[in-house]
């Protein structure tokens, strides 16, 4: 694979959103904003993009200084009541991509901490919307920048998001491929060239792999072209980078966007 892994995953998410039939997509990160904007170019032209809790039909800009998801978007915004976000979730009409710190074999999620509930050895941000998303019949994608046995576990330490309701579609995108949760657990829909090896190295989550899964080597061409149009500065790749590369991309974006009242 010659392209950045983040491009493969973001392009896959854009295609997933476009073909999901959802009417509203809730942005949670710069990459998810880029994927939603690209999905509009891939056939979901009427997709509403929700940024935050009251801007349910907005034009986000993939960025880092306007909040985690362009929550305070620079584009057009139709403002609604914050309760609408949860009504859409309850009615199964929204899609959202999240990045839990842990995801387990039954689809439970954790962003609270490592260790017993209430007594974290390592405290993480907090439950955020995971209990709300996972309990809903709406579409949820788990998008993780690494296929790590530390994140993909047999059972999460703290249950933020409970086992999803029967019939709810839950898919996982990692550098190993795309996976779907069903009654028998997780199964591979497609793999990357390194996918089988990565899956084997993270056995806790119990992903089922057969010899018949397609192998995807490069990002969807049309999706990648759309992503590059809506996110010309590659802000989406920050969350799929690590270490010095991630820091450099983050600072570059911050410098390009930033206007401080103290400057």
């Amino acid at each position, binding site marked *: 694979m010659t392209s950045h892994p983040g491009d493969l995953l973001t392009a896959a998410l854009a295609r997933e959103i476009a073909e999901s039939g959802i009417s509203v997509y809730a942005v949670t990160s*710069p990459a998810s904003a880029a994927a939603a904007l690209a999905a509009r170019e891939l056939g979901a032209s009427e997709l509403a993009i929700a*940024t*935050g*809790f*009251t*801007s349910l039909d*907005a034009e986000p800009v993939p*960025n*880092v*200084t*306007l*909040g*985690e998801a362009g*929550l*305070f*978007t*620079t584009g057009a*915004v139709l*403002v609604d*009541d*914050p*309760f609408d976000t*949860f009504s859409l*979730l309850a009615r199964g009409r929204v899609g959202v991509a999240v990045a839990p710190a842990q995801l387990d074999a039954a689809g439970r999620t954790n*962003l*609270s*901490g490592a260790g017993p*509930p*209430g*007594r*974290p*050895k*390592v*405290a*993480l*941000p*907090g*439950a*955020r*919307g*995971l*209990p*709300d998303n996972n*309990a*809903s019949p709406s579409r949820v994608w788990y998008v993780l920048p690494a296929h790590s046995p530390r994140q993909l576990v047999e059972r999460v330490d*703290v*249950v*933020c*998001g*409970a*086992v999803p309701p029967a019939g709810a579609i839950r898919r996982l995108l990692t550098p190993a491929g795309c996976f779907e949760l069903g009654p028998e657990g997780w199964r591979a829909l497609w793999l990357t060239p390194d996918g089988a090896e990565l899956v084997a190295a993270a056995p806790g989550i119990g992903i089922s792999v057969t010899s018949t899964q397609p192998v995807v080597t490069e990002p969807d061409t049309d999706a990648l072209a759309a992503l590059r149009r809506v996110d010309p500065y590659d802000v989406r790749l*920050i969350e799929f980078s690590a270490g010095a590369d991630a820091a450099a991309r*983050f*600072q570059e974006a*911050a410098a390009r*966007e*930033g206007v*401080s*009242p*103290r400057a």
Partner: protein
Amino acid sequence: MGLGGAGLQRKPMAAARALVAAGRKDLTLVSFLGSLDVELLLAAGAVKTLHSAGVALDGAGLAPRYRAGRQDQTFEFVEWSEGTLLCALQATARGVPSLPTWTGLDSDLPALNPNVREAADPFTAERVTQVRALALDVAILHVPAIDARGNVYVEGDFGMDGALARAAGRVYVCHEQTVSEEPRRAVLSRIWIDGTASTPGGAWPTGCHPHYGADLTAVSRWAAEGATAGVELLTETVR
């Protein structure tokens, strides 16, 4: 006390700095999605209890004081989900002791938060999550603009600020500028507001769109050094 904004946007930092300067202690703080507001008040030793659905510094990483404080149990943390916290604020706004919701069932939230319980719906016996009302003495918001009568204008997301305002006994609004009156565009009516303060740049280092974005140089420095930094760095970074 509820502080408005979400993540690195529209945090009432000028008000938080004033609280620190006034030496306030033992606060019960509600920050829907916290960041440097929580960090500042934790670093000053002003927080006894924190209610939140999450605290982080977005792309700059984890919030060091919050993280250490939870691990060392130096403050009481009451963990909510976004949906259950909204439900708790709405219960207060509607004048009822609790409200049911569908979110959070079978999660560990009830173990982490005494205000969240599984219950049976009285009509169908269906399992629901019952959420106790959360009432605030005061809410402080930071917004881009108000008009001369005090109506609030925000471009983009208003987050949970409207819910905070309706659950608070008193509401104070810090603002960047005063604009001409256009009440049909207002996101919060003056009828909810008890006082306003002109604080240009008062959300810094968090952002206040469209006036300025988050100052990620300052935020990144805090992410890197905030866990061990003394008051000097705090006052230098979070002025």
